[in-house]
């Protein structure tokens, strides 16, 4: 009773941030259209690259992926990327540089949680305009039937669960970079570094199984693999039995570690925070 009551209070206090960032996103229509366009372009480009790669392969199979698997993988990982989208680094850096962070800190709210819910607004938005149409196309055309993707209630449920953990991991991993802004004041460099690390280790570029085994083992253990790669493999039914359980456990372990580590680092960063201007 009291827990549900507190949860209700919690959401009442933080959901307005989600609503606000969602409404703000709605206002910048051109930005959104360009963004959708570039996303589609990117998926299209990657597909063309894979078609070319497979044309030159003799067996028509690369690391257990046929061409159709690979195309499906590309669509699904883009969708998962969108579902787990969290980019607090920009928000925090902006708040920090123009001193706006002060206006958040005078309010009786947790700044991390505020930024999380703010990002959730952007996330929801990108899913409404990107993931939703993809899903609809999938379900209502025969793409789904031809793709070889077998959706079961279990795999869908596990996917949702895995995506939620992926979202949290993505948020915290990115928030750690955001806190480095306070110390180094090098937003752009940190942003670039984060981008490169995410691209390589998340499996967004190519499936991690394509890497040499020593690197693959390392990459799969990193938090970034937990963000999109694991959920995507779950949805594609490529993980089974013990492997599936161990991957979910790995995700859970990352969530717990990152929550604790971020909390520790945040309280330290706050103590040495400088507030710019005025």
């Amino acid at each position, binding site marked *: 009773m009291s827990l549900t009551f507190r949860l209700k209070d919690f959401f*009442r206090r933080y*959901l307005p941030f989600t609503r*606000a960032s969602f409404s*703000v996103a709605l206002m910048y229509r051109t930005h959104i259209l360009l963004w959708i366009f570039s996303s589609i372009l990117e998926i299209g480009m990657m597909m063309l690259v894979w078609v070319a790669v497979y044309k030159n392969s003799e067996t028509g199979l690369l690391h257990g992926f046929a061409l159709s698997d690979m195309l499906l993988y590309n669509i699904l990982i883009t969708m998962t990327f969108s579902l787990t989208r969290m980019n607090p680094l920009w928000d925090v850096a902006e708040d920090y540089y123009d001193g706006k962070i002060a206006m958040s*800190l*005078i*309010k*009786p709210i947790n700044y991390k949680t505020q930024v999380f819910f703010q990002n959730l607004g952007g996330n929801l938005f990108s899913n409404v305009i990107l993931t939703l149409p993809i899903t609809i196309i999938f379900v209502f055309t025969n793409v789904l039937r031809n793709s070889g993707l077998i959706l079961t209630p279990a795999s869908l449920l596990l996917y949702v669960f895995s995506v939620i953990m992926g979202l949290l991991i993505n948020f915290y991993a990115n928030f750690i970079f955001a806190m480095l802004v306070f110390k180094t004041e090098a937003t752009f460099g940190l942003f670039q570094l984060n981008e490169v690390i995410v691209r390589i280790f998340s499996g967004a570029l190519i499936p991690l199984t394509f890497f040499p085994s020593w690197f693959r083992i390392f990459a799969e253990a990193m938090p970034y693999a937990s963000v999109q790669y694991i959920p995507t493999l779950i949805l594609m039914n490529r993980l089974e039995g013990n492997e599936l359980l161990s991957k979910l456990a790995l995700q859970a372990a990352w969530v717990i570690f990152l929550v604790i580590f971020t909390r520790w680092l945040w309280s330290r960063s706050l103590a040495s925070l400088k*507030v710019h201007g*005025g």
Partner: protein
Amino acid sequence: MIEVSHLSKTFVKYEKEAGLWGLVKGFVNAKKILSHAVDDVSFTIQDGEVVGYIGANGAGKSTTIKMLTGILTPTSGHVKVNGIVPHENRVANAKNIGVVFGQRTQLWWDLPLVESFSILKEIYEVSDEDFKTRMALFNEILELDTFIKSPVRTLSLGQRMRADIAASLLHNPKVLYLDEPTIGLDVNAKHRMRDAIKTMNAQFKTTVILTTHDLDDIEELCSRILIIDQGKIIYDGSLQTIKDKYGSAKTILFTTKDKMIPEFDLASQLKVPHDFLKLSNHDNVLEVTFDRRQLSTAQVTQAVMSQIEVVDIEIQEVQIETIVGRIYQEGKV
């Protein structure tokens, strides 16, 4: 009650030499410089007091406010606001305070103003009933009605500041920090802001700490002032005391008909020592400065008019601006 004792905040800055070579050198080995923004400050403020916190730019006003609000962690010393240490218990402290930083806004830039208020209502857990009565009160004093549906980015500075002060008062805080609340406002907007502050203080006994460069704000609102200079408090007391101490000098300007003002001995005529009066003349204006505790305006005017033919008289009192300017310059009271 706000208790501050031996509070200090030191910032570390890195000095880089000018020019490209200086930047390269700074990249490898930047020189560390400590700046004492707030240096051993102590004061106590009672509930319901309106205190003006003044000082030149960069004196340490904002840094002090930021420590009181819990945004900055002090380097040393103690702060307690209603029994809470702000930087250790920021969220608990935030529930009891309202803050306006004149150069920023706590409103949502892209959303209609009314949206900002409803978000703040949830954040501060204001009940529907309180929300209604308070919004009605703010409408009455600050006239928010005309622009409440406009996005905040389209508001004029005066409108935005009015909205910002309403936002800071929505949860009826015990303490209100105002960091330059009238900066850049026109005369009418300033009056509105001051009215709102006065009303809230009278109605809810809100404690107000106000930093400003506009001394009219101080004259109208504050019973007590703190003056800070280079991080140290150099004065803590009433405005009247300062006025009495520095504002006793009075100057009368006499404009004469003739270009040449004949020499005459005003001191002996008034039967006072020579150092009681200061005389100087430029063209056809005679300037007499005296201490109003020793001589009256009538005495001086009469004595002068008996000697020379006067066409105009202008009496000048020392402005509070002049006094404060002098205090800033000397760095002591």
